[in-house]
């Protein structure tokens, strides 16, 4: 089971984790990314490339299920404006064994960061600014290139 959703509405991580638990797997690994109140950030805005985003995320989920023995993978990503504490992204995997589930989850979030066409803008009291890409994210994603 692969599920990929990108949209402006808040999503429920618990429901997604619950769906992963339904497939008879022995282990579920999840990562949830949240808006941090980093240096006075009040709102985060996510822009994306409709169509390409969904295709890239689905390709990543397909690659994960080829590389690891997964029974399920779910990727949820919010776009549009969101406030501090809200969920931006959820990545969850289900497998018979924990090593596969955790590696696949880690792969998905690392590669999502560099491969999926999303752009973040921070709103602060002082104004707004587009977040710059981090070299550390490129390094993390490169670890997973075959």
């Amino acid at each position, binding site marked *: 089971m692969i599920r990929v959703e990108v949209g402006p509405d808040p999503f429920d991580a618990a429901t997604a984790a619950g769906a992963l638990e339904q497939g008879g797997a022995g282990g579920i690994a999840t990562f949830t*990314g949240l808006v941090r109140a980093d240096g006075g950030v009040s709102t985060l805005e*996510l*822009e*994306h*490339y409709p*169509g*390409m985003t969904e*295709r890239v995320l689905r390709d990543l989920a397909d690659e994960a299920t080829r590389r690891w023995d997964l029974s399920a993978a779910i990727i949820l*990503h919010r776009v549009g404006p969101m406030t501090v504490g809200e969920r*931006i*992204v959820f990545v969850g995997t289900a497998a018979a064994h924990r090593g596969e589930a955790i590696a696949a989850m880690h792969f998905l*979030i690392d590669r*999502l*960061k*560099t*491969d*999926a*066409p*999303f*752009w*973040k*803008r921070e709103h602060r009291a002082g104004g707004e600014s*587009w*977040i*710059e*890409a981090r070299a550390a994210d490129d390094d993390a994603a490169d670890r997973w290139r075959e």
Partner: protein
Amino acid sequence: MRIEMLYFAWVREAVGISGEAVTPPEAVRNVADLIAWLGEQSEGHGRAFAEPEKLRAAIDQQFVPLDRELGAAREVAIFPPVTGG
């Protein structure tokens, strides 16, 4: 050749529009050529495309390096490095 351009993030803001259809001249062979040519189209385009090293591109929804030939490209997107997740 008619190309559907798409702009995202600060590129979109600098150009002032999220996309446009363009027909670049024959001399425009690859993405870098396209970026240089677009930069001449308006003041906003000039600001958006002044520093190609800060730009990334996709042809028909696949990331490509800037030296990639346009070939039969139908949709070309120009944007800053991605920052999702």
